């Protein structure tokens, strides 16, 4: 068989079983063939490097665009802060007695600016995997944003012995639905029993208190967060300053 065709089929991933045998044989005994193979293999590696360098440049460019955007548009939070401050100044100017009701922290905005759903990092959903377990159902619903369904599935799993990290994801599902009290109960469990998600659970619990305008518990939880964890520590410190 034509050696060139053999190499072509190799790099096009089209070697038949017989061709593979011949290919291995030539690689062992034919030095010219081996040299040609090594050359093409090196070329493949080099082209990948070439493409990757180009790609990395593009990604660095995207990052620059993102940080430029952040700088040119003051963050939503700062803008909101500024608007609130401006409104208050105006209201004071107008001598409106009721301005006092606007001067406290805007818990809802603080929550919105800091809450971000936590991705499923625990269970891999493979569409063709034939796995029909309840655990799969729970995480698939969570990934799809079907939080009611996810809660039901996590709840059922708990009644049959529970799964790793189930409480954390059920709590996050509650938070997505604004059911903060239920979320807080579960997050307390996570902090006690699930070492891997302890820091995350504490962070989301602080946010849940914030959403409930429960300043005392929000501040206490955030202080504990800053003292004990590194996860989102800067954000926790910033929130504490806002709540001061």
């Amino acid at each position, binding site marked *: 068989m034509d050696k060139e065709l053999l190499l072509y089929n190799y790099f*096009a*991933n089209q070697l038949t079983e017989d061709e593979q045998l011949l290919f291995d044989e030539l690689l062992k005994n034919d030095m010219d063939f081996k040299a040609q193979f090594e050359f093409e293999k090196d*070329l493949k590696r080099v082209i990948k490097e070439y493409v990757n360098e180009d790609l990395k440049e593009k*990604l660095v460019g995207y990052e620059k665009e993102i940080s430029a955007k952040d700088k040119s548009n003051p963050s939503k939070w700062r803008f909101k802060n500024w608007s609130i401050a401006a409104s208050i100044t105006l209201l004071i100017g107008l001598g409106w007695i009721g301005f006092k009701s606007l001067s406290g922290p805007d818990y809802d905005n603080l929550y919105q600016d800091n809450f971000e759903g936590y*991705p499923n990092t625990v269970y891999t*959903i493979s569409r063709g995997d034939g796995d029909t377990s309840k655990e799969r159902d729970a995480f698939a619903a969570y990934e799809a*944003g079907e939080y009611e369904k996810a809660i039901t599935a996590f709840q059922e799993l708990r009644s049959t012995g529970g799964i790793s990290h189930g409480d954390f994801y059920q709590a996050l599902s509650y938070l997505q639905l604004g059911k903060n009290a239920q979320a807080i109960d579960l997050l307390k469990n996570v902090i006690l029993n699930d070492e891997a998600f302890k820091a995350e659970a504490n962070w989301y619990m602080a946010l849940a208190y914030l959403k409930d305008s429960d300043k005392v518990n929000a501040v206490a939880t955030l202080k504990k967060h800053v003292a004990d964890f590194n996860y989102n520590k800067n954000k926790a410190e910033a929130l504490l300053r806002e709540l001061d």
Partner: protein
Amino acid sequence: MKEAKTEITLEDLRNGSDKALKQVYEENREKFLNFARRYHLSDEENIDVYQDAYIIFYDNVMSGKVESFTSSIATYLFGVGKYLIFDRMKKNKKKVSSKFDLTIVGREDELLSGFEMEEQELTTEQTLLQKHFGTLGKQCQELLTLFYYRGYTIKEIMQAENYNSENVVKAAKSRCMKTLRERIQANNVQ
């Protein structure tokens, strides 16, 4: 707040669309950084890891290692990202809890089993080859990239690049390889 669903298909990425490349990068960036923060690397390192994970994911899409998305793109990125983060933590001599390590990574093994992760540094010969590959004409670079990086067949290259026949593609490829060899040899003689 809610995780946006991407409508980018595997084909969009495989066709080399810059728009798809950027959209997938932006859509998954915050999610990835939010997840990566738990490992206590700096924000700068997390962005670097995200980019490296993204490149590995892209390479595997382009080389046909991913034949269809059996999971969300984010799941692939998290899987590769975790691998890179643990690797980086080991290099930084940071402690990685073995229990935590296995819980999180184990399940994704299958999804990423065919993935090519990080490559070795280029050898001296490869560095020389890289230098001369960069001096080839645009058409040669394109043709060789389609064949060796994107796994196109000669027929697919003919269709994609409007060559008249497969033989013309084969001849062009041979010429490009010959030029490359000659330049390397000339370099060695100097």
